[in-house]
């Protein structure tokens, strides 16, 4: 954070994105309750970032989605279990009908428990869920853009717990070695994972220094400060083309927006019951039309 001079972000932009993020949070709770399964914690924590990414930061065209994504930015979700937030922003951005969010995790749905390409859901370019694989794919997609002389960017979101998978560190080394500098990777650092607080399960610190030592530009941001998300990612864009990949450590609160879910690892992968559902929705009034 100290490296970046805050750029002015208009209050209208912030308000517009916050309104979307609020509805995305409501979508997440309704989807997970409806399916009685899914991962609300990390999804809620990434709602602000995902709204900013899909509605402000990325250059994308939902009406003409192609697997190849040539001439537009490409997004890879590595921590596939936060599919609720991914599906919500995709639907809200127009990739597929909002009503389809009702089918999340149900039989015959395109909205699989973890994102998949097999059912042809627009917006999804790789299956993820088994952790630690998305970054490698994003690096490949970025190399692909370079070979295609396509100056658009590849964005990737990773969870912090999945950084325990060694493949990520292979990918960090590869990306730096090959100067993959059209890639912006955000790490959701909520410090919670299924078995408990991340520092107890497997310490990740000093993360900033580790990534830096691997040869990456490293930025940090508060994942719940919309203006900061925007200007940090805009700053990250300015760092592309400089020979090094870019990582953004995003500090978030698991379960953000629902008081009894906040900062509690037990909400990593559990659905609310009826009473909890109602309490959650009281805190998340609809800002757009519900699905």
């Amino acid at each position, binding site marked *: 954070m100290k490296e970046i001079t805050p750029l002015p972000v208009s209050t209208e932009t912030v308000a517009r994105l916050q309104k979307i993020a609020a509805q995305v949070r409501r979508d997440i709770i309704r989807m997970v309750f409806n399916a009685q399964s899914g991962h609300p914690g990390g999804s809620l924590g990434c709602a602000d970032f995902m709204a900013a990414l899909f509605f402000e930061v990325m250059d994308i065209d939902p009406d003409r989605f192609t697997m190849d994504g*040539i001439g537009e930015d490409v997004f890879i979700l590595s921590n596939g279990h936060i599919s609720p937030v991914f599906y919500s922003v995709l639907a809200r951005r127009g990739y597929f009908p909002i009503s389809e969010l009702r089918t999340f995790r149900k039989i015959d749905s395109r909205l699989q428990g973890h994102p998949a390409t097999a059912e042809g859901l627009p917006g999804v370019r*790789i299956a993820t869920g088994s952790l630690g*694989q998305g970054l490698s794919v994003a690096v490949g997609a970025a190399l692909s853009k370079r070979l295609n002389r396509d100056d658009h960017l590849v964005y990737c979101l990773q969870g912090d717990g999945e950084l325990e998978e060694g493949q990520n560190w292979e990918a960090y080394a590869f990306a730096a070695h090959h100067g993959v500098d059209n890639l912006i990777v955000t790490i959701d650092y909520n410090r919670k994972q299924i078995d408990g607080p991340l520092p107890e399960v497997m310490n990740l610190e000093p993360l900033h220094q580790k990534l830096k030592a691997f040869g990456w530009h490293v930025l940090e941001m508060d994942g719940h400060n919309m203006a900061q998300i925007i200007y940090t990612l805009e700053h990250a864009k300015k760092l592309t083309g400089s020979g090094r990949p870019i990582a953004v450590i995003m500090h978030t609160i698991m379960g953000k927006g629902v008081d009894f879910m906040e900062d509690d690892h037990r909400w990593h992968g559990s659905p609310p019951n009826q009473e909890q559902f109602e309490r959650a929705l009281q805190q998340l009034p609809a800002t757009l039309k519900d699905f």
Partner: protein
Amino acid sequence: MSKYYPAYDHKPTREGFGEGLYLAGKENPRVVALAADLSDSIKMTRFKREFPERFFQAGVAEANMVGVAAGLTIGGWIPFAGSFVNFITGRVYDQIRQSVAYSNKNVKLAGSHMGLTLGEDGATHQNLEDLALMRTLPNMTVLSPCDATQTRQATLAAARHSGPVYIRFGRPKWPVFIPEEMPFEIGKAQVLKSGNDVTLIATGHMVWHALLAAEMLEKRGIDAEVINMHTIKPLDREAVLQSVRKTGAAVTAEEHQKAGGLGGAVAEVLGEEQPVPMARVGVNDRFGESGKPEELMRKYGLMPEDIVQAALRVLTRKKP
């Protein structure tokens, strides 16, 4: 020397891969290659030299290499990710399963130094389970060509095929006997010699041994049919059934565990469609060891004589 298919050269099947990869790269500028520190061992040398901008060194990090290959398909590239069989299959099974097969990406996985004939490096490197691992994955095509010429053809076919492909080939010099003009088609088995008494179905290096076995059987008055099953998946079920309906007995031969590979695939077809006496020549549920390729093939029962013995056994079980 087989009288049916005289060997016109001796060279490793991996050289056929190297030639095929180069030709694929020349034919299609979208073909790219990745290696995990074994690019010369697996004969990517010429591709690397001719198309340096399309070659990526991944270091000794196969999991990431498979993911990067999957990512390269997003944007229309056709990546060949190669290493030794052990490191490009078993070591990275879940990366292949999720990022390649389930995601149905146009990635070509190239496994060199297959089976026991890898030789002196021993069991750590002698993966004998790759066919089983790869053929049970939905969307995956599995190629197992028999000589350098066919490996070149199969590599080109893999590049032209749309979808995930696994292709395996070997390290030692091996007879080259497939005529240049013999067409290669994925999923279409080749009847190399027709016969009426027993069907020998072989893959990879073992096709040569099956041809030699057929000659040895002929001296005993047994007329064997020899099928080169260069595609393990999709298996050419019709070729198997057509042959055993004529011969009434089958022997499979592969440089792989008896379980789950070619023998397993053929047994599935015969069990469901046309039960006939059958035997599998392969490694019998154990790991390999260090040694010279021929010593290993002898010790582990992969010689032409082993195919002959298996054929004689199934013939005694054949209904008169």
